[in-house]
């Protein structure tokens, strides 16, 4: 296996970041831990104190089934892209629904990243989220952006059918598929085919890779996007082939340039705001409903909804500041 190129801390950055303040890793680490634990009320209190957020760093999402190789590929991609910019990577792993605990193992696949100053990797647990992301993901991404990264990578939980949520949070969505796993059909069922900006056929040294590429291209050509839209490329990757990772990186650059030329940032920002509001309300409602005793359900459904709507106002009324 060829050695992975690593960014030397001494290399001056080609643009901007050389003058950026040094990353306060300890401060950011603590801040993200506090944010991940923040209640809906704390999130709102924080928002009330914060200046309006303007997204700066481009966001790239990696999604795909468990075992598709997202972590390994994401790690390689992050190392490569950190040669030219300061990169922050958020990697989400599933929480146990029984105890709420989690083993966050994405890092094991990213051994080389810990020595790179320009790269910051953070593991997150999906907790109560069932959409491949994590509670307060909007706030966590904003905190990462505010820390001065020039690019953010987001790796979802591998669940296979529900990761479309990542599409609402990133600029470039990369769908990682592997030959012979049947996850291509799952992705089609889940509508991921329409939401991916780049298709990756990973582990492309395995049998069936060429066939999978042909199948994806077949679907893309059968249902071509309008000429004004981006036509997703299909990239073959194998982590033992550094050139293939570079090819994926180049495809991401092309998509980013296309986005910049087709000024639709406002639309993406609106999508993010919708997602943020919806996930906040969903979490608050889920917490309230699970705390209800059996008596509550004696009332009619109409009354249940009315009572809950009133409690929702009360629940959101008290704002408490976020503890450090």
């Amino acid at each position, binding site marked *: 296996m060829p050695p992975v190129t690593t960014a030397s801390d001494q290399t001056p950055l080609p643009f901007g970041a050389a003058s950026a303040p040094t990353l306060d*890793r*300890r401060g*950011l*680490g*603590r*801040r*993200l*831990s506090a944010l991940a*634990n923040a209640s809906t009320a704390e999130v709102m209190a924080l928002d009330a104190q914060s200046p309006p957020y303007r997204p700066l760093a481009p966001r790239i999402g990696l999604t795909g089934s468990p075992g598709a190789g997202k972590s390994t590929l994401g790690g390689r991609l992050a190392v490569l892209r950190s040669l030219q910019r300061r990169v922050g990577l958020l990697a989400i792993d599933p*929480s*146990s*629904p*029984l*105890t*709420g*605990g*989690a*083993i*966050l*193992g994405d*890092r*094991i696949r990213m*051994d080389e990243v*810990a*020595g790179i100053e320009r790269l*910051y*990797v*953070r*593991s997150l*647990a999906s907790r109560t989220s069932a959409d491949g992301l994590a509670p307060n993901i909007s706030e966590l991404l904003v905190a990462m952006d505010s820390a001065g990264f020039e690019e953010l990578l987001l790796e979802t939980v591998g669940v296979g059918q529900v990761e479309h949520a990542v599409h609402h949070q990133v600029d470039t969505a990369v769908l990682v598929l592997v030959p012979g796993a049947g996850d291509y059909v799952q992705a089609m069922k889940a509508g991921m085919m329409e939401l991916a900006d780049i298709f990756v056929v990973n582990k492309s040294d395995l049998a069936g890779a060429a066939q999978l590429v042909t199948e994806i291209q077949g679907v893309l050509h059968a249902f071509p996007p309008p000429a004004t839209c981006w036509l997703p490329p299909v990239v073959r990757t194998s982590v033992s082939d550094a050139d293939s990772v570079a090819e994926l990186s180049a495809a991401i650059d092309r998509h980013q340039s296309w986005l910049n030329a087709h000024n639709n940032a406002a639309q993406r920002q609106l999508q993010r705001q919708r997602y943020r509001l919806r996930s906040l309300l969903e979490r608050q409602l889920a917490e309230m409903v*699970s705390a209800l005793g059996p008596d509550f359900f004696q009332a009619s459904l109409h009354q249940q909804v009315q009572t809950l709507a009133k409690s929702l106002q009360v629940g959101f009324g008290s704002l408490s500041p976020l503890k450090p």
Partner: protein
Amino acid sequence: MKIAEKTESSSRAESSLRGRRILVAKPGLDGHDIGAKIIALALRNAGAEVIYTGLRKSAQYIARVAIDEGVDAVGLSILSGSHCELVTQVVERLQEAGAGDIQVFVGGTIPEADHAQLQAMGVRGIYTSDMPLERVVRSLAQALN
């Protein structure tokens, strides 16, 4: 419905480490991590979010991961006999990075005679392999809550 109730009540009872982030790390050269993995699972079952490093990591690496991941505690699993040197290195790296407040715990083959020295370095808990998992979890929960 019954299942859901059982799930909720059992998770409440056992989740003494909920919301805590703990790094389980293997410094040094010994090649056995079954103990580290069992501890990682026990902590997860108690509700903690556990980051596991894998084998043979340097003190520098462990401190960097602990800081980036914003953990509350680092558990070092050491079976090689070099615990005093390895713990010193990790504690020093954490302090240099302004993260001396991250609590350090040690598990593995740690002779009684070395406990005082490790505690003097700031180690909050020492867990040997004969200790029941519930006791380890309880002791960690007490130290972190």
